[in-house]
């Protein structure tokens, strides 16, 4: 699964640590999400979508063609 988390974070001028604080996760988790090493649960995906005021599918996309 790929995502636009890094771009969205940059648009908001947040550091990884600031985003992590708002999501109440560790900075390592934000980094793993951004690099695609870790896919979030639905709960965390909804939390991220709410934070950026976007739909989940606008942030996360299935990599299959």
């Amino acid at each position, binding site marked *: 699964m790929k995502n636009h988390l890094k771009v969205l974070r940059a648009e908001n001028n947040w550091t990884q640590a*600031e985003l992590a*604080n*708002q999501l*109440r*996760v*560790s900075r*390592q*988790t934000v*980094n*793993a999400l951004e690099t695609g*090493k*870790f896919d*979030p*649960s639905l709960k*965390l995906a909804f939390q991220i979508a709410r934070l950026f005021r976007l739909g989940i599918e606008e942030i996360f996309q299935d990599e299959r063609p």
Partner: protein
Amino acid sequence: MTEKNIDQTDYCVDRKKSALVNAFWAVLWVGSTFLASFGPRFIWDYATVSTVIAVLANLTFGALMLFHTIQHIKLHDELEQKIFYESTAITLGAALVLSVSYELLEKIQLTSEQPEVGLVIVMISLIFIASQLILRRKYR
């Protein structure tokens, strides 16, 4: 960000508090293990009542340590929990395989030494630490 920072501080404080509580019960458990191991011989000369109390205290502190460890893990975020569960699974599997092989060494007479539980505990701890380090690097 001020409101968020207050939340984050509370969140960090909660996790630090939880880690301290966990460490407190771990120290009590180690202390009670020490007392149950050496008390009968060096302090109360194998008095049954004292020994039973020491063993019960050891079990109680062990159970409380386990309970607080579970509570502490619940405070972790989902990636940290995933790393913890994966390393626990690796440790369980590796400990099972290695301890069976270790016990076999004496049975098939490759060594004359009796297998020691202490060595298995050290092995389990090392596997857990190594798997934690490897998994943390993997998700870095």
